[in-house]
């Protein structure tokens, strides 16, 4: 028998501004029950985080317009209405942290860098519980042990920068659980983490929930994660709840069209057959042999330089014409460094990297001089990860896309405009978009603009560094399809750097798996995803959540 601990009815939140207000969420209703995980899914901007913040009454600068948030104290049999409380008052502060705790997406910025982990956990305990300093410390060590941090007696006196990303998130969870709350709100807690770390954190959360009988409000955009841990699912779109229900029902009998679309985008990547029919040609465009690059440690006064991080260690890959080669690995595995070496940003200490250009010549990519005449940059183009940072906000779309054509002296004036219009239409944007500035576009649209800039020079190779990882599920699928279509039309070779196995499986022909600067395994996408040979690849593949609640394998 499960007990409802939080009832939300008809909640609406709006951001007031000069001309009226913008509604963030409207008429949202749901229940949280002890011992159950309720997942909130939706794409960015759908109002998931605002809903979570409204529960804690920390929505400033927005205001709660209407609705009721009833927190039920099961033991005392009381109900508190949270939305009516003063956001800075004593009553709501007694609830925050003690009854309802929250963990955030970014474990680095939500921990104070100048205090030890212990100090931060102890502070939360002292604020809400009637214990002395020694008792709080004992409790904090206990909490760290509960989140499976090795050697908690020592770890408690360390600073956040001494922790890895996964350990920081564990510490955040320990802090949140320090006061034994009834409700834990987790706002995308695993999004910033690597997939193997994500699996550990999900397992940890589920275990803690079972032992403590908490209600967990879990916000995510990843349908795989939902399928792994949810009991109940709330699907949000444009600030409204479009579907709620038990996880199995939502996944296997969705009613709302948007839910179906989300599932299709998630399942599509996993179940779509890999569609490359014609094999890539044998013409090799980029070839590296034994690339090694070590970043020296920081130069210290009067001390000898030590050998620092080995970013690349004996990396040999080959990119063939018309082929999509995926480079997969967790953060710090050296995949971005590899891309930067190929683009001439870094020069490796050992090894060769050759590019066979269109005119039949061969360029040495390890030599800065081969980039000087710009030919390599005309034939090898880059798509960036961050759709916001990669477009100059001070230039119109026309100027951004036209820049390589203009600088190369290829086109100008009306011909340039016409070409930019064609490129925009090719990437699925109206030609009229060229007069606007990047801030008028959403993330997916900006990424399309970035692709238009990349194909403007009719390149042979595109290096895409995590080009879809900042995008929402269905948008990601659109961008991948766009790239696939362009590959066929323009005979492009794409070096696709990613950490998302689902994307790689769907998109790539061949995959190289990187771990600590080394390529541990190379093979076709299906080989790597379905029958991995290397133990590291096996662990990586096993940690990927599957968007089907009937196939749970991470937390069971």
């Amino acid at each position, binding site marked *: 028998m499960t007990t409802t601990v939080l009832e939300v009815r008809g909640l609406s939140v709006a951001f007031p501004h000069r001309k009226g207000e*913008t*509604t963030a969420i409207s008429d949202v209703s749901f229940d949280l029950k002890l011992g159950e995980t309720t997942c909130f899914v939706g794409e960015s*901007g759908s109002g998931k985080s605002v809903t979570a913040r409204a529960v804690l009454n920390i929505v400033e600068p927005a205001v709660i317009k209407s609705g009721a948030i009833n927190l039920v104290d099961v033991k005392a049999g009381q109900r508190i209405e949270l939305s009516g409380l003063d956001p800075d008052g004593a009553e709501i502060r007694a609830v925050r942290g003690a009854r309802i705790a929250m963990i955030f997406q970014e474990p680095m910025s939500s921990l104070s860098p100048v205090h030890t982990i212990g100090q931060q956990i102890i502070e939360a305990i002292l604020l809400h519980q009637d214990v002395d300093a020694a008792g709080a410390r004992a409790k904090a060590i206990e909490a760290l042990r509960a989140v499976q941090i090795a050697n908690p007696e020592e770890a408690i006196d360390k600073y956040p920068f001494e922790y890895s990303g996964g350990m920081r998130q564990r510490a955040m969870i320990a802090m949140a659980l320090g006061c034994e709350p009834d409700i834990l709100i987790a706002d995308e807690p695993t999004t910033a983490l690597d997939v193997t770390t994500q699996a550990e954190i999900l397992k940890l959360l589920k275990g803690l929930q079972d032992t403590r009988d908490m209600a967990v409000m879990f916000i995510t955009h990843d349908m795989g994660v939902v399928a792994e841990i949810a009991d109940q699912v709330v699907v949000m779109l*444009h*600030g409204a709840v479009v579907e709620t229900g038990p996880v199995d029902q939502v996944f296997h009998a969705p009613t709302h069209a948007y839910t179906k*679309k989300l599932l*299709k*985008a998630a399942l*599509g*990547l996993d179940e*779509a*057959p890999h*569609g490359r029919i014609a094999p890539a040609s044998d013409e090799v465009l980029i070839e590296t042999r034994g690339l090694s690059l070590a970043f020296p440690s920081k130069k210290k006064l009067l001390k000898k330089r030590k050998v620092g991080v080995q970013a690349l260690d004996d990396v040999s890959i080959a990119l063939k014409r018309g082929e999509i080669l995926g480079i997969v690995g967790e953060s710090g595995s050296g995949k971005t460094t590899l891309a930067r070496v190929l*683009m001439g*940003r870094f020069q490796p200490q050992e090894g060769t990297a050759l590019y066979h250009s269109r005119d039949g010549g061969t360029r040495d990519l390890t030599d800065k001089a081969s980039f000087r005449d*710009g030919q390599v*940059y*005309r034939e090898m*183009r*880059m798509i*960036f*990860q*961050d759709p916001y*940072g*990669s*477009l*100059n*906000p*001070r230039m119109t779309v026309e100027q951004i896309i036209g*820049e*390589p054509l203009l*600088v*190369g002296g290829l086109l100008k004036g009306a011909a340039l405009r016409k070409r930019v219009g*064609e490129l925009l*239409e*090719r990437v*699925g*944007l*109206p030609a009229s978009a060229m*007069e*606007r*500035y990047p*801030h*008028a*576009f*959403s993330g*997916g*649209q900006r990424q399309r603009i*970035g692709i238009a*800039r990349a194909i403007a020079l*009719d390149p042979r190779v595109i290096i895409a560094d995590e080009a879809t990882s900042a995008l929402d599920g*269905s948008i990601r*699928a*659109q961008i991948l*399809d*766009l790239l696939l*279509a362009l590959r066929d*039309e*323009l005979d492009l070779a794409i070096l696709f750097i990613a950490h998302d196995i689902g994307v790689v499986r*769907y998109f790539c022909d061949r995959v190289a798996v990187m771990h600590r600067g080394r390529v541990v395994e190379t093979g076709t996408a299906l080989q790597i995803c379905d029958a991995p040979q290397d133990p590291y690849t096996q662990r990586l593949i096993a940690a990927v959540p599957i968007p089907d609640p009937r196939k749970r394998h991470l937390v069971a």
Partner: protein
Amino acid sequence: MTLITPADSPEDRIGAVRDTPVGEVDPRIDHSHGTESQWQLIRRRFAKHRLAVISLWILGLFVFVAVFAGFVAPNDPGNVKARYTYAPPQALHFIDRSDEGWSFRPHVYGYKVEIEPEALRRTFVIDEEKKIYLTFFKRSWDYKLFGLIPTDIHLLGPEKTRDPFYLFGADRLGRDMFSRLVYGTQISLSVGLVGVIMSLVLGVIIGGAAGYFGGWFDAVTQRAIEFLRSLPTIPLWMGLAAAMPSDWSPLQTYFAITLILSFLGWTELARVVRGRFLALNGEDYVAAARYDGCSHLRVIVRHMVPAFTSHIITAASLAVPAMILAETALSFLGLGLQAPVISWGVLLQEAQNIRTLATAPWLLLPGAAIVIAVLAMNFIGDGLRDAADPYAK
């Protein structure tokens, strides 16, 4: 290369996921304002800063006064009238109430001299019987507009040229404080502006090179800046000012002073510029520009400079008041500009004496002008700083 629109391409694989080409538009987002440029956004943000907008108007007034100094000043600022030593300010009246009724006729009251019986000191008393009528666009003493066009038209002047007209009172030699203040505005504002422009040129070139290319040049300039900034400023200025030959003309001293002021002023701006360059070097769109085949010059001029011009303007607008204050301090100490050049600092030199302050407090008015100008520029700098980066979250 043939171009096919997505609608024509086969609906293969999960192609059905693809919806409208532009993607689903969130109905809550207002897409109507995507065509505004950076400067339009900055102007809108700036307009929200009330205090900054008001300050901009005040500064505009100061600049107008400085540019049209001869036109605004009713009297020749160097004209000595021993009869009116320490004459108090006259209030300006617009409505003339006479026996025939009311009429619009600007006027001031004349002076009556009284001798204090004990101290036998001459004091001026406003004589309400004696009305001095004023006319607009009065022709009196000659000056050159913008230093080029000889003319003798003034905004306001007494009908009879010989009548006293002292809006802000008179100084030790019976010179008109208002006219002197107007001329002081010209010098003080231009010292601030010229000094900042000189430091800006130095700062942008040195700081820009240090930030963009880094390496040993960066290290050397940074140490040099640290050294310069560790020098105590007043003794340094005193030393440099003392080293100026005493036979230099006022114009030469004027340029030497601005040079001395910008000698230290550029360090601050160089740091701002270097910091911006370092930050921008890491931006993806700058990397993208390099991959687009842009030269160093084009990357800097087209992609990086527009990203921080607003920051530079902000830093500069905050540096101008510092320059003005520095000039004032130097001149006040008698080391900066020298009479007959008139600057706010030179005018304040007169107010050093406590006795003159007791009898003629209006000599402090240049101080008020400094406070108002510096405050206005600081508010404008604040407003610009808030508006400088319209893309910041």
